[in-house]
């Protein structure tokens, strides 16, 4: 009897528990199903968005807001693979590049987006319609790149390049770190610059509803948006407001108080204690390798270029043993683990992890921390007591952790007798004066690089003789650069890129330090943000999925 009662209670309990489990599963399933197709508003707080300009033919710098109302030819999916946006197909050869444009593509006034529009865009960006449109900040480069444009039909175009250009898709088509956006050319020409900035009409998923330059922008979803890819379609949020809040703590407060759903670039010191998965409160996602940091020894370049003073010719950093000692004295792993709370990762490469040209075996072979060997090298070089030096740096939006790293490096170098002073410069000034022949940041500078998907672009920017953001070069890298930039053959490019990296690392002209993450913060409203693992420069905010 007793046993029967017990078993009866057990059956009931099991029934109740089973019911609860089923209920939980049903509610979870219904929760998943309940993800709404449309939500009213998404609020985003960012530290910066580049330039404060809406006119795509007069940009003075990159501006990620353009992503939402103007067009790119290509993009990246969640896996980081190039995928169609305006162009459904791209073909790169030594002669040039052909694009097939999506016949569904429309501008926001209903007119079709055609190959002729694309041609007019290139002309507008290179300054053909001056003085009304100033031309793009990099219009000079674009003009040097394009020899001729052939509109084959409304949806096919061939762009003949002045020479084989392996970087066209990376630089001008919108794969990863893109530099330009395509606007409604006919409308731009009809209303002019002033008419356009007062009433911009594009072809992207959002329309500009309100624009306060430097402060905020309010986008309204374009209900007839033509995009039907998983990565480029009508967004979920009807209104998207992006606020510019320069202070990191104030941005995070917006997230905590529920005033913002997404916040960019959360300082590492705040991010360290936050969960990386959605839960009860704000959560974060580190976008890996958004920035790349390296110490660059400037004086070897200055000597090579013949602009060194007599005093500089005796600087300790001209001795490769000293440069090796300085590298061995830095514990890169400890900087990443302790000073950056594990939000950066040490690197031994000049290129961004995962990019075209990155070699994992080299990049992950971190130089050992060996202060004893460093001291010995200094003794051999004739500096047993060490010396005094200076490291110059600038701080850029989206590249956190620099002061902490420099503090740590100063401490490490002090242990081998090298007294280092870090001097900060205004970021714009830092960039402007980095180039030869000035090379103002002598003897050492901490250079920060944004993520690039094609390392050839990095070499173009920094590792040849005429690089605008000049780091280091040798006659050998110059030769290899000419090879790499003159072919669309990927195998040849990879070989040349590897040669350039080996050459510069062998001379120890640079000490690669770490790849820095960019920390994005989310409120509990955010269910998903399907973007590539490696940080996109431009945040794909139109892909965010909210729960209500």
């Amino acid at each position, binding site marked *: 009897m007793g046993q029967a009662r017990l078993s009866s209670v057990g059956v009931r309990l099991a029934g109740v528990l089973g019911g609860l489990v089923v209920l939980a599963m049903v509610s979870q399933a219904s929760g998943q199903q309940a993800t709404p197709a449309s939500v009213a508003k998404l609020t985003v*707080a960012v530290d910066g968005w580049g330039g404060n*300009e809406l006119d795509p033919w007069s940009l*003075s710098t990159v501006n990620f807001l353009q992503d939402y109302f103007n067009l790119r030819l290509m993009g990246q999916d969640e896996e980081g693979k190039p995928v169609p946006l305006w162009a459904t197909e791209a073909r790169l050869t030594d002669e040039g590049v052909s694009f097939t444009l999506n016949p569904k593509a429309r501008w926001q006034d209903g007119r079709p987006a055609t190959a002729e529009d694309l041609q007019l865009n290139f002309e507008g960006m290179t300054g053909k319609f001056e003085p009304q449109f100033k031309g793009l*900040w*990099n219009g*000079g480069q674009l003009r*040097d790149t394009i020899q001729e444009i052939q509109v084959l039909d409304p949806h096919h175009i061939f762009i003949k390049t002045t020479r084989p250009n392996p970087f066209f898709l990376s630089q001008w088509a919108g794969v990863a770190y893109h530099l330009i956006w395509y606007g409604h050319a006919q409308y731009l020409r009809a209303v002019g610059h002033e008419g356009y900035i007062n009433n911009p009409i594009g072809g992207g998923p959002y329309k500009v509803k309100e624009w306060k330059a430097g402060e905020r922008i309010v986008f309204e979803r374009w209900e007839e948006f033509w995009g039907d890819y998983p990565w480029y379609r009508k967004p979920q949020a009807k209104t998207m407001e992006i606020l*510019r809040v320069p202070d990191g703590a*104030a941005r995070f407060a917006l997230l905590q108080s529920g005033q913002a759903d997404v916040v960019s670039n959360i300082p590492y010191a705040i991010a360290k204690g936050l969960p990386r998965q959605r839960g009860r409160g704000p959560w974060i996602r580190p976008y890996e390798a958004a920035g790349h940091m390296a110490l660059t020894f400037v004086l070897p370049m200055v000597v090579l270029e013949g602009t060194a003073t007599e005093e500089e010719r005796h600087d300790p950093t001209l001795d490769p043993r000293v440069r090796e000692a300085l590298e061995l004295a830095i514990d890169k792993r400890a900087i990443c683990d302790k000073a950056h709370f594990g939000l950066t990762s040490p690197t031994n490469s000049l290129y961004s992890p995962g990019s075209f040209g990155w070699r994992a075996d080299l990049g992950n072979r971190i130089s050992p921390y060996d202060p004893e060997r460093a001291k010995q090298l200094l003794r051999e070089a004739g500096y047993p007591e060490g010396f005094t030096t200076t490291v110059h740096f600038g701080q850029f939006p989206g590249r956190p952790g620099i002061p902490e790293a420099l503090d740590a490096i100063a401490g490490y170098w002090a242990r081998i007798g090298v007294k280092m002073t870090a001097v900060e410069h205004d970021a714009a000034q830092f960039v402007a004066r980095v180039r030869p022949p000035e090379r103002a940041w002598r003897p050492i500078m901490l250079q920060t690089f944004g993520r690039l998907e094609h390392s050839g672009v990095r070499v173009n920017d920094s590792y040849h003789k005429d690089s605008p953001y000049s780091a280091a070069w040798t006659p050998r890298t110059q030769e290899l650069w000419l090879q790499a930039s003159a072919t669309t053959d990927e195998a040849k490019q990879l070989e040349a890129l590897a040669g350039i990296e080996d050459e510069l690392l062998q001379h120890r002209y640079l000490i690669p330090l770490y790849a820095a993450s960019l920390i994005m913060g989310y409120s509990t409203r955010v269910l998903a943000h399907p973007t590539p693992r490696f940080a996109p420069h431009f945040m794909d905010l139109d892909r965010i999925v909210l729960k209500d």
Partner: protein
Amino acid sequence: MRRYAVQRLGYGVVTMWLVTLCVFALLRVSGDPIKYMLPPEASFSDIERMRRVHGLDKPLWQQYLLFNKGIVTGEFGVSLRWDHRPAFEVFLSRLPATLQLTTAAVVFSVLLGVPLGVLAATRPNSLWDRLGRTGAVIGQSMPVFWVGLLLILLFTVWLGWLPSAGGIDRLGLAGLIMPAVSLGFYLVAAHMRIVRSTMLDALSAPYIVMVQAKGIPRRVVLWKHALKNAAIPVFTLFAVNFAQLISGAVITESIFAWPGMGRLLVESVFARDYAVVQTVVFFAAAMIVILNIVVDLTYAWLDPRIRLG
């Protein structure tokens, strides 16, 4: 009085010209704006092209003549970084937010600082006085950004009462409270200290003894007779602070994402946006000069010894 006014106006015009000359020279000395403006990836051909497009390839003397001509004709040039809009339009777009914040901060500081100062002066060395003086020291020692962040932590994050990012156009009047308190906090202490000190002097003056001897109520003695005479330095402080804040409160504006002139000026300086920097400095200087002239003339009107001297 008229001669005095003309003299002051003359000084004002000379000051303005010197300010514009300094700004023009300093901006040019600090570097080529195109190099500073363009991203690291810009090539040499990009730099040359942009310099030509923006007229920065012209000789300095030509640029200076154009700049002066612009001031006279009201054409302050076109911004480099703000949608290529006219610099004057960019300046005007930020002026209302600056005036709102400045006025609110100064009014807050006067409304709180003056009564506290009077209270402290009427009861010297009392608990009120000591509390007031301690508060003043704390108020003047706390950095504005720290006060701002504390306010955000308390009223936005913990209590959820006040919004913290944007101007009145986005948040309504509620958005003004924390920036104004944060900015005015320092000024409360300054006003309190000066009122206390001038009131102490005034309360020991013979005319106050005379008024008290007449049996006039203490409230009237304090607020009508003593404070009125002690108000001249307070008025000066008020005007000076207002003028200073007109040119922008960069830190407060950054923390609260307030769309004022301070941020505009700093961002334009970093971008070497000549046209915007020159326009903002010109008008900020003009407002400071005008306010100073008004203060001088008011002084002269209140106290004839000043203009005669």
